[in-house]
């Protein structure tokens, strides 16, 4: 017989109510899904907000703001598609795609929100003016000094207090940022777009929190990369995106996990897995594997019961010519 076909042709057709079959499967899914929805509802977990984070971790919040201001934050030095940084560039494709969603972390994450708050809080304007009129070297010195000082800072009476030192206007500015954060207004200031009244783009809000705040949040730890990331839900006990198990597994491979281009590697290898799946019919050997595995004998158990086991292939094909549907 033609090895390309490799199929029996001597089978019978039996009566079938196809419409009933379709409505039956639909009914099964509706019942299962409704039952699951009634019993388990939704696995929603409260997101991390700037208000929540700045209230719970005021000193760390000021550290986040300071890292955005001094260019040491992850987004400040990320690279394309946000800026010319180099901290997160994994491939030439990333460079080639260019800067599509520009972010100047110091301006967009700190200075602009503070300028918006000037009219509400008069202490901001002179401090901001002092900072902006200082030389780059002076700003860098204040930032370096205050970065160290924040490690010993405490939170008292609603403000962060650092040991005395040469910080310029930074303590005032960062406590103003803290007040803005605790008020809940910071997020709105981050995603403001004066050209439109809609707020579809939450980029700067989410990316502001993407470093320490989200990475150290106890609620995200079960979803972290080394813990098989995305396949886990935010609430234990619920299913996550378990269909991403293979890419998540690839992320665990040591040479991928330890690479500075782990995302590019994991996704590329994952795509090769998909390609192998998609091209299965045309991959010699692999496309004959199921026959050797023999699972089909269980699936077609009833059919094979009534089939002569030792029908020579030629006879199968002859029979098929007579009975093929």
């Amino acid at each position: 017989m033609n090895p390309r076909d490799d199929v029996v042709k001597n089978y019978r057709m039996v009566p079938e109510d196809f419409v009933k079959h379709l409505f039956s499967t639909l009914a099964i899914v509706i019942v299962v899904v409704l039952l699951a929805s009634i019993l388990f509802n939704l696995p929603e977990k409260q997101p991390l907000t700037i208000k929540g984070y700045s209230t719970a971790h005021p000193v760390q919040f000021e550290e986040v703001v300071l890292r955005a201001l001094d260019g040491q934050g992850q987004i400040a030095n990320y690279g394309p598609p946000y800026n010319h940084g180099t901290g997160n560039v994994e491939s030439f494709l990333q460079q080639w795609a260019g800067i599509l969603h520009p972010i100047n972390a110091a301006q967009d994450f700190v200075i602009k929100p503070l300028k918006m708050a000037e009219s509400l809080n008069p202490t901001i304007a002179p401090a901001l003016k002092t900072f902006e009129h200082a030389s780059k070297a002076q700003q860098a010195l204040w930032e370096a000094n205050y970065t160290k000082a924040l490690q010993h800072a405490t939170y008292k009476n609603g403000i962060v207090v650092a040991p005395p030192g040469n910080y310029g206007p930074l303590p005032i500015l960062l406590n103003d940022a803290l007040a803005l954060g605790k008020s809940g207004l910071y997020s709105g200031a981050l995603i403001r777009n004066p050209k439109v009244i809609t707020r579809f783009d939450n980029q700067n809000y989410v990316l502001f929190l993407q470093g320490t705040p989200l990475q150290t949040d106890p609620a995200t730890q079960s979803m972290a990369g080394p813990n098989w990331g995305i396949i886990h839900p935010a609430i234990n006990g619920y299913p996550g995106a378990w269909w991403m198990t293979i890419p998540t597994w690839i992320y665990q491979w040591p040479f991928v996990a330890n690479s500075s281009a782990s995302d590019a590697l994991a996704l590329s290898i994952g795509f090769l897995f998909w390609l192998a799946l998609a091209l299965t019919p045309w991959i010699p050997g692999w496309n004959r594997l199921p026959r050797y595995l023999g699972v089909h004998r269980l699936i077609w158990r009833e059919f094979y019961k009534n089939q002569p086991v030792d029908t020579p292939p030629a006879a199968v094909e002859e029979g098929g010519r007579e009975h093929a549907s």
Partner: protein
Amino acid sequence: MANWTTASKRMLSEVMSAETWLPTEMPEYAQGFMYMLGSLTASSFVVLVLSGILLAMNGPDSWSYNSAMRFIAAVHFWGVQAFFFFMMLHLWRVFFTGAWRGGRGLTWLLGAIAFLIAIPTAFTGFLINGDLYSEWNIVQAKDGLNAMGLGWVNLANSGQMFGMHVVVLPLLLTIVIALHITRVRTKSVVPPYPNVKVKGQTEKGGSAS
């Protein structure tokens, strides 16, 4: 070269025929639960589209302040779990039965493409939900897209993700699923392997093919 109109007419006659879509008999081997998995996957997709229309009509954050919409969002959530669950079982069934045989390679390829498109379709839905899972996966997954030069897909842009999840990806997925099912109906489901012994198996009688 063959006449394009004649060829199109022949193809359309088959694709648009009630005989193709409403068969009254099936091959004897295509019976039982194993042959419900594709339909169960398609049925889950129907449930997803219906619950998704209700969600789209009311807004992606309506679950957060309206208990009826919260229930619809739950139906949508469990619908996607059912969709992938049945799709995965269907994938195992078609793999173990070598469903690409007899000129059915394109049917298999379309199914694989549907699986590939289904992943970002589901993912963009998780992103517009607005809870911690959305927030976490936006910041985690953006690095992968950026690294592959796909930075124009801005996961933190809810408007873009809404459009992707509600229009672009489901439309693509619907087309690919429709083509996949059309191929299944026109080519029929793959017949069993010939019942002969193959190397490495221990069934009685027969010769290796």
